[in-house]
Structures are given as structure tokens and as C-alpha cells.
């Protein structure tokens, strides 16, 4: 498969704190890669560098074969990148419909039109309505984003990203703070994305990771500690040693590993 994203030797420090220390990743078209790691491992910083919100100290970001390291965020979006944020980052004072409409009008190339009212752009309106229906938000389309429940805001966050019809979608903890039922429907939604949308997902919930990812990269103190198929990463002794004790899914793994060793 063709490579869609290459993260090449990315370094970034904040003052004296080295957050990323030579990260290398290659993501193929259509792949679903989960990035896991303890808090402070640099996951969100890496997303901010891939998305263009932050510049790396060193290294390159190659998107679709093109070096976009020096390109601003909005130009990466027009090259097929979209992202969601760890903490909801919405247009809180605008309606749900208007939130998504803004993203749709940009993708349809209508953002700077001035000669006709926004309401007259029927293609923008119908695509917006379609997205809201797909996300299960159509009933709430007139509500202000700030009046949504937390789970609905997370869905709107995903709707804004999907509206860009991305080739590469970065999801930063899409289920953070959600109830089990909301998490299940978010997982369902993510699994329903077309297979040609390449996914990069930061997630702490290991059940979500294993339900979605074809591949897992473990970030630890700004370096890629392990990178491989879920079953490989699950059994990687380095990973077990430094990280996986925190998750119940891996506790089982670890205890079987330990009993294997002891046995």
C-alpha cells in the first residue's frame, strides 16, 4: 500500500523539557494506527505537529509524498488532513448546524462567496444535513453547541472533522470522558468510516484501541517504544515493562506472561 503519512525524526522541546525525541512513523493509506502511551508521552504534541498547530524543532512531516513541515494548518487540511481535539474545540456560540456548515462550505470552496446568502447554497445545506443525520445529531441541529451534552459535543467534534472529507483523520481521545454507552456508539461510528480514510487515533481505553486499530505504536518519553500489529505490541516485553500495567486488558496479559515465566 502507498504511504500517506511519514513522520520523520520529529523532535520538539518546551523549554528544557524534551517532549518528542526523534519520532519516526510511517502510515499507509487506509491504515488505522493507534498511538498509545502514558500521560506526558508526547502524543498530543505529535498530533499538533502533524496537524500544523505546532512546528517541530527538528524533523519532517511528509503528507501524501509532499513535505508539509513548513505548511500552515489550513493548507494541510486542503491536502486531506482533518483532526479532532482532546478537549472539545467547537464554535460554542453557534448552532450545531452552523458548526458543521462552516466546515462544509470551506470544503466545497464557498467560504469566500459574498454574492448570495449562505442559506441559498443548497449543496452545502444538504451535505451538512446528511452529516448530522449520520452522526445522529439531526434532532439537535438548532441547539447551540454549548447546550449539547458532553457526548454530543464529542460527536460534533467528529462531524467537523468528517465534513472535510479527509484522507487522513487524526482523532485525539475520541471517547475521553464518555459513558460506556456513548463510547460504544463512538466506536461503532469510527468502525463505520470508509476503509480508505486513514486513521490515527490517540486513545487510553484499550478496548477501544483493540476494536479499531490494525496497528499500534507505543510512545514513551517522546520515543516510539514499539510499533506493530496489536498482538505483537501486546506481547512486547518492553511495552509490558514500562507501560501496560495500567490497563485492565493488559493486566490479564501481564499476569499470564508472569505466570508463563514462573511456570
Amino acid at each position, binding site marked *: 500500500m502507498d504511504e500517506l503519512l511519514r513522520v520523520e525524526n520529529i523532535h520538539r522541546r518546551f523549554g528544557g523539557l524534551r517532549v518528542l525525541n526523534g519520532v519516526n512513523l510511517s502510515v499507509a493509506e487506509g491504515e488505522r494506527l493507534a498511538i498509545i502511551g502514558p500521560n506526558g508521552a508526547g502524543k498530543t504534541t505529535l498530533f499538533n505537529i502533524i*496537524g500544523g*498547530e505546532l512546528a517541530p524543532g527538528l524533523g519532517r512531516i511528509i503528507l501524501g509524498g509532499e513535505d508539509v513541515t513548513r505548511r*500552515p*494548518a*489550513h*493548507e494541510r*487540511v*486542503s491536502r486531506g488532513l*482533518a*483532526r479532532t*481535539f482532546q478537549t472539545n*474545540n*467547537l*464554535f*460554542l*456560540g*453557534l448552532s450545531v448546524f*452552523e458548526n458543521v*456548515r*462552516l*466546515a462544509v*462550505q*470551506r*470544503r466545497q470552496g*464557498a*467560504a*469566500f*462567496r*459574498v*454574492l*448570495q*446568502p*449562505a*442559506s441559498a*447554497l443548497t449543496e*452545502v445545506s444538504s451535505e451538512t444535513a446528511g452529516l448530522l443525520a449520520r452522526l445522529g445529531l439531526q434532532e439537535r441541529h438548532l441547539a447551540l453547541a454549548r447546550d449539547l451534552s458532553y457526548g454530543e459535543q464529542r460527536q460534533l467534534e467528529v462531524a*467537523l*472533522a468528517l*465534513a*472535510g472529507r479527509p484522507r487522513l483523520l487524526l482523532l485525539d481521545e475520541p471517547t475521553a470522558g464518555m459513558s460506556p454507552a456513548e463510547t460504544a456508539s463512538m466506536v461503532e461510528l469510527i468502525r463505520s468510516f470508509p476503509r480508505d480514510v486513514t486513521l490515527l487515533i490517540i486513545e487510553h481505553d484499550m478496548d477501544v484501541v483493540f476494536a479499531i486499530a490494525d496497528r499500534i505504536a507505543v510512545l514513551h518519553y517522546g520515543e516510539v517504544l514499539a510499533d506493530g500489529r496489536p498482538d505483537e505490541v501486546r506481547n512486547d516485553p518492553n511495552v509490558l515493562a514500562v507501560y501496560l500495567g495500567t490497563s485492565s486488558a493488559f493486566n490479564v496479559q501481564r499476569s499470564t506472561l508472569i505466570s508463563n515465566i514462573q511456570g
Partner: protein
Amino acid sequence: MTSDRRRRIGPGLATIAALVIFPFVSPSIYFQNVLTEVLIFGIFAMSLDLLIGYTGLFSFGHAAFFGVAAYTAGIVATRFSDNMLLTLAAGVLAAGLLALPLGALSIRSVGIYFLMLTLAFSQMVYAAAYKWTWLTGGPNGLAGVPRPVLGILGLDLASVSTFYYATLTFFLASYVVLRRIVASPLGHSFVGVRENESRMRAIGYNTWLVKLAAFVIAGLFAGLAGVLFSYFNGFISPSDVYWTTSGLVMVMVIIGGAGTLLGPVLGAGLVLILQNIVSSQTDRWPLIMGATFILFVLVARRGIAGIFHDTLALARRSARV
């Protein structure tokens, strides 16, 4: 749907009708002049509202575009030709051409830094108006700007009521155009930047360009107001470009209610009418003005438009009960 539309358009038509028959009802030249000035500053305030209320850009240098257009129109009228189309085009073009570089430089900064930059740039324009004596008349100002001649229609704009109607026409046209702009996709992009600029970038907007578009459009309409002011006043002084003029129009926007277009027009009306009444009684006009502003900021943050809106909502609710 039609009745809803009628309810929305009805008060507007009534207001327009009232403005049209005003010179017949009140033949007083004084009041016609006051209303003319209100309409001119109404255009000026609406243009700033596009920045403050819609795009979230607190420009403290908006008088630069008003003033440059007024000076340009005045200079063209006194030295070359008092043809209306010529002076108007020259003034508005000058404001737009100034807004382009000043906007491009200012909008890279946000918040208080943006405010300080726009203030600094407009004070540079003031300094130029003050020092460039052979062109602008310097501290003495530019006197003797004639009322323009509209050759084709044979209108004599020297008459108070004719000039009032000309200003009213420009005001209504500006309102319609600005209303259309804020309802357009571009207008929605402005609001998106106001609400969350970083999210706009993350969904693919070049927010720098969106803000520049708002800045230049606002500059053009401030320029139109400046040209009309030069005709109206017949005299332009450096104080028309001074930061106090920027402050005055900002007060009009905030008292009137930012983000509503018509609110700032009401703000212009309140400020100018109050100014005319109070300053004929006492020298303490700035004190009254300041107190009024503080009152609005403390108890009516959404301005006159907000008070109207709440009163209407209350009336509708009690009508239903």
C-alpha cells in the same frame, strides 16, 4: 412564512417611511442636519461593527479610513473637481488601499496587540494629516470643501433636505449591502473566526485572509462615511483622524449593540443626539457621555439592540400568556 416575513420587514418599511417623510414633518434645518450626521456616523459605526461584532476584531484605529477618505475627497474636490462620482470613488478607493496594508500588518496580532497596532497605525495617519501642511492644511484643517455636483441628475446637494436624501440613500444602500455580506458564506466565515479562530484553521480556513477581507470591507464603508462627512461638514480637521474619533465610533458600536448592524446605528443616534442636546446646555458633555457608556457596559452589555430584543421577547411571551 409570509406573515413571518411581513413581521420582520414591517418595522423596517415603517422606519424607512418615517426617515423619508422626516424633512416634511420637521422642516427645521437643524434637525435635518442632526439626522444627516447620524446617518453618516451610522454607516461608519456599521462598518466597525463588521470588525468588532462579526469578526471579533477590536480595531481602535478605524478613524484612519474615515479620515483618509474625507481628506482625499476634500483634496480632490478643492483642487480638481467637485464631481460627486469622482470624489466618492477617490475617497473610498483611498480608504480601501490604506486598509489593505494596515490590515495585513495588524491582523497577524490578536487581542490587545491588535488593538494597539491599529491605534498606532491610525495615529501615524493623524501625524501625516497634521504635518503634511501643503496637502492637508495641517493643524488648520482643510476648509472650503464644496458640496458635490451630481451633473447627470441635476441635483443641488447644497440644499439641506436634498443632501439629507442623498445621505439616506447611501445609508440604506450600505445597510442592504452589509446585511447581505453578513448573511453570505463570507459573513459566516467572519463569525466563525470570532467564535473560534484556531478551530477555523483546523477545518481548513485561511483565517488571515478571512480577517483581511473583513478589514478591507470595513475600511471601504468607513471611507464612504468619511467622504459623506467631508461633503456634510465642508471642513476636515486632523481631529477627524485622531484616536478620539476611533474611540467615539467604538462607543457607538458598543452602546448600540455589537454584532447587530442596526444597533450601532442607534448607538450613533444616541451619542450624537445626546451630544447635541447636552453640549447646548453645559460644557460637561464628555462627563455625561462617559457616564452613559459606563451605564451601558455595566447593565446593558448587549447595548440598545439587546434592550430592544429583550423587550420584544418579553412582550411576545406575555402576549402568549
